[in-house]
């Protein structure tokens, strides 16, 4: 199949060629006369033979000029010749990270591969091209052995590269993602990488993997009028526990019963500072985690000296720590949001809540990507038409332009030679001479 990366150049060349033809048909040549003092001795005959001969040469000149124009115009239009089938090819990016459900993913992949030829790329933090059989074998491994979460950015890089390489050979190439698509799977570069693919992105959202929790739950022993309680209820709705471990939140130091509860694997106990009605916010600062920051009024408290820091004040002091508790963990928080204002309900506070409620040892935001953000990921980028974008990439390595340019220059050389020969002067006006 023959494609042009910049067809506008070729269209301009066609217009130029039409102009050349028009000028050729309309122009009346006045022969450039050579001086000869004895011209009077030349018989004053009608020079019809001259007209005939020169018209033939003029035609050859015209054809050479048009050929040169078309060849050079075609070269500048960056043509590519590829052999294409009429089939569709699918590039399937399959999330095999810790949060991906094996059964749901395999079902989606099998359905996709049944309908069209496919190239499968399995990814967690590293994408790899695999066969369907190899993918099935990987998914037969227990989810706990797949401890690394899927990274969509890395998958998109490999997927877009594969799709662009296949695009010249197939009538259509589709890019599919099979993944739970959590917030933590993407990063700041994901959208920019996605825009490298000029067409739509097909997302097959699967349910998250069962990571071993018997029954995810959120236990809030905090009053509703408590800003922490309000924030937790907003960020951790009881009906949506996907990706979130069992979590219990308390004000004040945890009791022995709480500690015993938190020893089981997959459970998180979050201990907030005790509420003191007489205390007033004494700190206007920012608290940051690996997933974001929030600024506001806080009541500052001390945190244990040991444990992994999971939140920090803007002055560098640790604001929250995670301590192992058997197979679970306890998170000791050293700040309380102010009851005044709506800071407790802000998106920053919600991110903070989800971070504090994440499973032990992980700072990945395992909540699902909201629909509007998913739609932004799926939609094709504006301003790029797939054929032009693909043709530009394919033509980057095309040698056809070079050969066409050389051929055009040779035509120009031939035209110059034919025109410069003494017997090839332009033709006489029709009807002879005086």
């Amino acid at each position: 199949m023959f494609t042009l990366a910049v067809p506008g150049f070729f269209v301009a060349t066609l217009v130029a060629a039409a102009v050349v033809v028009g000028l050729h048909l309309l122009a009346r040549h006045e022969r450039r006369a050579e001086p000869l003092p004895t011209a009077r001795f030349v018989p004053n005959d009608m020079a019809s033979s001259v007209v005939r001969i020169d018209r033939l040469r003029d035609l050859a000149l015209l054809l050479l000029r048009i050929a040169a124009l078309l060849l050079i115009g075609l070269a500048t239009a960056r043509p590519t010749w590829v052999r294409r089938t009429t089939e569709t090819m699918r590039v399937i990016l399959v999330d095999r990270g810790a949060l991906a459900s094996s059964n749901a993913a395999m079902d989606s992949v099998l359905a996709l591969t049944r309908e069209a030829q496919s190239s499968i790329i399995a990814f967690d933090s590293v994408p790899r091209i695999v066969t369907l059989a190899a993918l099935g074998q990987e998914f037969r491994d227990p989810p706990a052995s797949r401890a690394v979460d899927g990274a969509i950015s890395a998958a998109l890089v490999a997927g877009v590269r594969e799709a662009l390489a296949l695009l010249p050979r197939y009538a259509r190439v589709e890019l599919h993602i099979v993944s739970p698509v959590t917030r933590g799977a993407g990063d700041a570069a994901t959208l920019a990488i996605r825009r490298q693919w000029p067409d739509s992105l097909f997302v097959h959202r699967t349910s998250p993997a069962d990571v071993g929790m018997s029954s995810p739950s959120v236990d809030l022993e905090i009053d509703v009028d408590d800003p922490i309680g309000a924030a937790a209820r907003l960020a951790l709705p009881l009906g949506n526990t996907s990706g979130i471990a069992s979590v219990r939140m308390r004000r004040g130091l945890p009791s022995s019963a709480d500690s015993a509860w938190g020893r089981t694997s997959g459970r998180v106990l979050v201990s907030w500072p005790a509420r003191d009605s007489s205390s007033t916010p004494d700190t206007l600062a920012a608290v940051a985690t690996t997933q974001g920051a929030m600024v506001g009024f806080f009541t500052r408290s001390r945190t244990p000296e040991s444990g992994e820091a999971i939140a920090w004040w803007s002055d560098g002091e640790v604001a929250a720590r995670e301590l192992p508790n058997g197979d679970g963990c306890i998170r000791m928080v050293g700040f309380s949001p102010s009851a005044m204002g709506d800071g407790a309900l802000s998106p920053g506070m919600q991110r903070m809540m989800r971070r504090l409620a994440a499973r032990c040892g992980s700072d990945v935001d395992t909540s699902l990507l909201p629909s509007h953000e998913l739609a932004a990921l799926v939609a094709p980028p504006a301003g790029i038409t797939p054929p032009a974008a693909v043709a530009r990439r394919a033509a980057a390595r095309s040698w056809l332009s070079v050969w066409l340019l050389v051929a055009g220059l040779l035509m120009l050389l031939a035209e110059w030679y034919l025109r410069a020969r003494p017997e090839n002067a332009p033709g006489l006006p029709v009807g002879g001479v005086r």
Partner: protein
Amino acid sequence: MPNAHDAPGGPMTLAPYGALLDTVRGLTWPSRRRASGVLPGAHESRRRGTSPELSEYRAYRQGDDPKQLDWKLLARTDRAFIRLAEERSILSTLFLLDASASMAFPARGTSKWDATCALAISLSAVAHGDGDPVGLVVPTERGEVEISPRTRRGTVHELARALGSVTPHGSPMLAPILGRNLRARRIAIISDFLGDEAAIRRGAQTLVSQGGDVCAIHVVAREELQPATSTGMIVDPERADLRRPLTPGTRAGYLAHFAAWREELARAWRLCGAAFTEVVADEDPARAVRRILAA
């Protein structure tokens, strides 16, 4: 009127003609007629003088110088005869050169004007070497370049400088020059005769009838004798409205017409009493000079 004495002179010197002048050194240019000059020179004179070279006897007439009586013949025959001898005199030579635009053809190689200058300089050197006064007249569109005949040293150089200041251009007429009192008894006309040839010939015929010696040198270019075989439009450089197509079909007609014209030209000039020589522009000038001198 530009004069050779006043003109700054073109860059032309005799240096380019050194080899040619060496070749023609020693040649003589005898007059075809008896010269009528008074001053002694190299040419047979119409006058009978007292030189030792006996020419003829004439019966003594009253008034003749008695010193010229041949006393021995008187003693033998009792009849008085005067001994007459050959006299030689100079022959003032003037070169009339055509500097019209057609003389600049061809633009590449040796043009007719280049050949004209070479012939004029070499013939003037020959005549000057014979002791004859030489001069030239070149009508141009801006006036005439004229050097009156003279014998002094450096005359040939002066002629060369004067010719260096001339560029063939336009269509100056030569015929009016011949109608003037040129103070020369031998006129060498070097031209392609594509201008006012008939008027020039009439002027020359008048000069011949007055006892003068006219030498017509017709300069043609090789490209005029053998024009290019390619098809093209040609134009007369002196007449922009004269345009003809030169094709393989018209070329044969051109060659025939041009040859016929040249033949008629030579016949007409010879009939009027002039010496006529045709010279090709790229011909060896030394050979051309010898042919002219032998004509």
